[in-house]
């Protein structure tokens, strides 16, 4: 693991914790050299409803276990007993923070298995909704990184701007958090009058935010001291653990589903996802700040290039009697946190036989986080979790 230059002293790792002859750690809590600490589920430094069982030696972590299940609602099971259109309104709840990826992936699975072709205008609007969703999520994660190290101001800016994006969502879809705009067969409506102008005003404010957050957070000596060289994600772990999205891009891997497996109208847009190589907390946060810039640019391109009108819905069967022939598919899209996939199996009935969400946090917040926390300082746990953008609901679906 990369040495953190900011740490002045750390325990002699060759002595503590002691190792058993087979190489496993001899963590004897009664020896009084170790303390077990629960980080969450009620903790300001936890990114959602999960907890970490940490074994500490001094202030270094020697063992870490992720615990989830605080938010399990059995969505995948429920969807198996619901018609496709009912499953659609259920699946979006699998990720509260960024539900539009669920809408899109579910709809695309249904369309692909039913052989439905979506009109081009709907694809433009779907791309717009997905990018708006990415933007509002990034406006939480980016300043949230500062919050994990005590910089609360950026979060207030971010939440204000996120609210402006939610205003745009409200006028486009009628909903602020759950939109149900991208439905099987197309989208629910065209842009309202004056939407482009209001969106442009919002984007201008976000442009200013990028400059402000850079001065507040990225140029801040304390923030740098707490994040540069900390939470190093070894590039060799990217494939070993299945890391994707901004976390992989911060480790030098040019991976983005929008570029690698173009869907919707991404191949008609001119953008280049930001990639860096230092792979620490600071770099991952930097990648996400640049992602905001890229997303703002993409939304501007969409608004400039998209047609003014056109069909927004394909012909679909009666949603209450929609039977899909036996089949299976896997679709993926790029969420703000990485590859977001859906595996759907149908059996010819009105109900899906199986639906399985593959969320990036399933990897980032369980096996990878458990590995990365070994040897970390307990004060950096919150910061590391935010930098991986751990989102528990997509782990426990």
């Amino acid at each position, binding site marked *: 693991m990369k040495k953190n230059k900011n740490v002045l002293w750390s325990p002699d790792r060759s002595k503590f914790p002691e190792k058993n002859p087979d190489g496993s750690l001899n963590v004897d809590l009664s020896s009084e050299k170790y303390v077990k600490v629960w980080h969450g589920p009620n903790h300001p430094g936890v990114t959602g409803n999960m907890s970490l069982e940490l074994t500490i030696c001094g202030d270094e972590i020697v063992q870490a276990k992720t615990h*989830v*299940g605080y938010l*399990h609602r*059995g969505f*995948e*099971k*429920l969807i*198996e*007993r619901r018609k496709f259109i009912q499953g659609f309104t259920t699946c979006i709840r699998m990720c509260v923070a960024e539900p539009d990826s669920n809408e899109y992936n579910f709809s695309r699975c249904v369309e*692909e298995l039913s052989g439905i072709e979506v009109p081009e205008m709907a694809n433009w609007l779907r791309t717009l909704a997905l990018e708006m969703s990415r933007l509002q999520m990034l406006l939480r994660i980016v300043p949230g990184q500062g919050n994990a190290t005590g910089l609360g101001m950026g979060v207030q800016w971010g939440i204000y701007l996120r609210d402006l994006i939610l205003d745009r969502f409200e006028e486009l879809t009628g909903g602020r958090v759950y939109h149900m705009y991208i439905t099987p067969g197309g989208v629910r409506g065209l842009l309202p009058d004056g939407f482009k102008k209001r969106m442009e005003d919002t984007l201008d404010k976000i442009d200013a935010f990028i400059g402000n957050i850079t001065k507040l957070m990225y140029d801040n000596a304390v923030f740098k001291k707490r994040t540069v060289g900390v939470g190093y994600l070894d590039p060799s*772990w990217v*494939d*070993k*653990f*299945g890391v*994707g999205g901004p976390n992989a891009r911060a480790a030098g*891997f040019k*991976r983005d589903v929008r570029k*690698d*497996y173009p869907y919707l109208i991404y191949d008609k847009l001119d953008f280049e996802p930001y990639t860096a190589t230092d792979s620490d907390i600071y770099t991952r946060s930097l990648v996400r700040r640049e992602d905001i810039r890229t997303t703002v640019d993409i939304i501007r391109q969409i608004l400039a290039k998209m047609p003014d009108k056109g069909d927004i819905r394909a012909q679909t069967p009666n949603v209450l009697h929609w039977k899909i022939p036996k089949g*299976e*598919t*896997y679709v993926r899209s790029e969420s703000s946190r990485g*590859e977001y*996939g859906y*595996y759907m*199996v149908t059996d010819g009935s009105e109900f899906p*036989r*199986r639906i*399985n969400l*593959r969320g990036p946090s*399933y*990897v980032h917040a*369980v*096996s*990878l986080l458990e*590995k990365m926390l070994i040897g970390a300082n307990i004060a950096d746990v919150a910061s590391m979790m935010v930098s991986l953008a751990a989102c528990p609901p997509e782990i*426990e679906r």
Partner: protein
Amino acid sequence: MMEQILQDISKQFEITDIVKKRDNLNFITCKKEQTISLITYLRDIKGFSHFVLLSVVDWIEDGVFQLVYFLNNPEKKIDIGIRTMISRDNATMTSAHHLWEQIATYQRELKEMYGIDFPGSPRVDESFILEGWDDIPPMRREFDTKKYSEETFFPREGRETNDPEEYMKKKLYPDEEK
């Protein structure tokens, strides 16, 4: 490209039910005994270095679980889904945790949710989501969610259930009853 890979696989493994879903996505079925060897071959020889997902489908009417291993080749940008059928009565599969670190988590979840055992997989017997669960694995098709919730959560003491029509009549027109 994908055709060449499928041809190469066919020479060494018994694969059936090849379904081309998209240009870059194929599903194949492989024998249970050969599945882990096939996955290892695809990872080490064919560049499928990214493990995407391990999922399962319960075909209760056929008495089998369908395990699906999704592999991705990030260089060639192609995906393959490898299906393998295992008996529901003896739901055991060889562990693949030595190939990718995150597989242990998937296997732990499948043990809990479907009762499929992966002997040797780290922490496979630890509960993942359902702490203290004592019923049949809940993602199995025969598990009745409605029955379970009715038995577990309702009726709660102190809670009355009223017929809406009768209740409103009593509330709005109490004298009519007399």
